[in-house]
């Protein structure tokens, strides 16, 4: 499996920019009602430096600060999956990630996946009509892209019968692995074959 070592040590006490001048130096000097941080994010291949409230989630930073509304806010509490993006390559919920804690991260949204034309997952969603209202769709798409990579790595799931074997893109495997993305329009019956199609499995 992929092994990630500890992140390189951050060379400074904290990557914080202080809204209140004269309070710089250590985080301990920060006023509880005036906390902002300057962070960098690479979003869909583009570098950004921006100032955020420490409370700002990655999702709100994308939507409200950077004008990238591709990831959606469906519940804001990690209960629906609409905000799923690829965060440093892995699918993750941007509503539960504080932007300041992901300073320097590389974020790919569904829009970014289409930079060079539609991603095969997106094409498969179109081919299979795997959505209706479209609100959960960018999250579904990012989740599916992450899922295909996880299966390629051989990661098991809750429905993998033999934990030591390589999983395959069966209906049950895809359905379980896509269960973190609610679709209220009820497109699940089309989402599974779309993901299988994108993963090279004829469904």
């Amino acid at each position, binding site marked *: 499996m992929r092994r990630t070592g500890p992140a390189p040590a951050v060379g400074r006490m904290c990557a914080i920019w202080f809204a209140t001048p004269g309070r710089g130096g250590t985080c301990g000097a920060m006023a509880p*009602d*005036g906390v902002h941080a300057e962070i960098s994010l690479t979003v869909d291949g583009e570098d950004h430096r921006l100032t955020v*409230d420490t*409370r*700002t989630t990655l999702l*709100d930073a994308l939507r*409200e600060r950077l*004008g990238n*509304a*591709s*990831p*959606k*806010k*469906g*519940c*804001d*509490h990690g*209960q*629906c999956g*609409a905000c799923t993006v690829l965060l440093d390559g892995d699918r993750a919920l941007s509503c539960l990630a504080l932007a300041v804690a992901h300073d320097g991260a590389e974020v790919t949204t*569904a*829009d970014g*996946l*289409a930079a060079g034309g*539609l991603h095969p997952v*997106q094409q498969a*969603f*179109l*081919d299979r*009509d795997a*959505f*209706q*209202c*479209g*609100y*959960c*769709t*960018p999250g579904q*798409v990012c989740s599916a892209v992450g899922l295909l990579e996880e299966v390629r790595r051989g990661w098991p799931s809750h*429905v993998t019968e033999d934990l030591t074997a390589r999983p395959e893109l069966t*209906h*049950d495997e*895809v*359905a*379980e692995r*896509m*269960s*973190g*993305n*609610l*679709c*209220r*329009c*009820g*497109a*699940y*019956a*089309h*989402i*599974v074959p779309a993901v299988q199609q994108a993963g090279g499995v004829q469904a």
Partner: protein
Amino acid sequence: MTELLEPRAIGRDMVRRDGEAKVRGTATYAIETPVEDPAYAHPVQATVARGRVTAVDTSAAEALDGVLVVLTPSTAERLASVEDREYAVLQSDEVDFRGQVVALVVAETSEVARQAADAVRITYAEQPHDSTLAVDRDDLYAPEQVNAGHETDTAQGDVAAAMATAHATVEQTYTTAMYHNNPLEPHATTALWDPAADVPLTLWDSTQGVHPSRSAVCGVFGLEEEQVRVVCPFVGGGFGSKGNAHAHVMLATMAARAVPGRPVKLGLTRQQMFTLVGYRTPTIQKLQVAADRTGRLQAIAIDVVEQTSRIKEYAEQTGVPTRMMYASPNRRTTHRLAALDVPVPSWMRAPGECPGMFGPEVALDELADTLGIDPVELRIRNEPGVDPETGKPWSSRNLVQCLREGARRFGWADRPPPLHREGAWLVGTGVASSVYPTMRQATSTAVIRYEDGRYVAEIGAADLGTGAWTVLPQIAADALGVDAEDVEVRIGDTRYPVASVAGGSSGTNTWGSALVVAAREFRTKFGHAPADGDEASGDVDQASTDEDHSAYAFGAQFAEVRVHADTGEIRVPRLYGVFGAGRIINPRTARSQFLGGMTMGLSMALHENSVWDDRIGQVAKHDLAEYHVSVNADVGDMQAHWLDEHDPYVNAMGSKGVGEIGIVGTAAAVVNAVHRATGVRVRDLPVTLDRLLPALP
């Protein structure tokens, strides 16, 4: 009789026109509207279920950097109309339900708005509340009419006498839970009030109808329609909850008017959606069914008890399908309401039919069991020749064909015996019927214009995932006799001609009819070689109507259920639906509609339940972790099929509407299959594993 369009584009499988924008996430929903320097609004909600606000301390909130204004009952503008008490926000100090908005903060950022809302201190004089729905309440009342203008009660013959003498009877009470629509896109409005502009108020609102939304706002604020523009190109689902404006639309407008020139964004949180945007009332359905030994119904009666709010009446028409579904000489349907200290109930997918086909379709299964008659056959034996409610012939009714085709596809004839076990699983199958009325709204206008070598059709319609962006061009193309690719349709804006709400599965029927009238008008006026700028309009009320037939879509749903013999966990590996819903405009988007309805029906059967905590007067579950909707892994082999149906009476497209029928009957089919698998008859939704434990081996 209507002259049906010759289908060329209609019936073709066409990819959604808005599909690429949706898979990329670039389709813009209301809260995402790119506006200059937006402010953010956040409501403060009452924490008592009934009482009076005695003090509002906004000092801490107002002291925060970035707070623009805090609106309270004493500082908010006085509205022109407070007649609709759901809309009369911040107009009085009365608290009518827990979660009602009692203040609103507008701030520079969403974080500060929310923090400031938390900092507003409200003091209440709390009064005892009453939020308990029960059949034995002594204050139940009969509303003047029920939703969609139906009669409250109907009666024919003598049900009691038939019950007393019939060969077989079923007399049981069935209940459906409280449900919340929970579209994935939270209700949201971006509002801009610019007094100097020609159109001072612009609302980018997540709505199932820009014109109805505008009407509501105009009424409440005393504005002329010309002063308000509502824009909504995309809706992240609604299922009825965005069919009517709710309080937050008024709040967003009020906030915008408090900071003129500054756009304000108000997005409800998921938690707030459990009190502010409607829900489906719980229903209690007392059923009486009597039959002779061959299964022919002698009587069917449904007495419904459900709730409404004390401040605004909404009466779900739960008993309505029992009036027309099956033949029976004796029949009774009644509706009684309890007006409670609760949030205002409203539309949710297939109001009336969805809950109203649960009790009867389970009761029929119980009757089939009692008589030893196959439940498919039992339904076929009770097929009425004409509409029992009106005496009119059917425009088309293919329930029997749906049942037979479904049974064939499902392999019903070879279904396993009761209490059948395969390995760790108990296996059972069940069936139920579906129905939904074919409707067309009275008002909608379409304009067709020839522009730069192609046809542009404009109508203020809404696409909430239903496919309007894609199917309206198909209809316009056939009406004009051109390729769909040569038609551009513009919807979702009050700048376009008035359109009815996307509800009651009537959108395509209504807007399509207006398009057909406009197209015919266009050809009459300009022939087949129009000049640039030639334009004609058409109103739906000019479309031919048929008063002589009863028009409904019908369907049959078949479920295979597996119950784990150790734990009672319930799975539905197969769910097939077959529908007779008129002509299908676009098989791709229609299939998604049917499957979507069935998925929501499955969710209703197994999961959804807004558990009410009457001690505090609010839903105990207030988020998507607790309010379960089906996830991907809950859905197995789910199929939707339809009959090739040509109905010359409904409209020029021959379409009946497909948005709602899929949810009707699903829960009954699942519950009937659970009974076959386990012997446990569940009469209260949802069916959860704890109900089955006592019967497991």
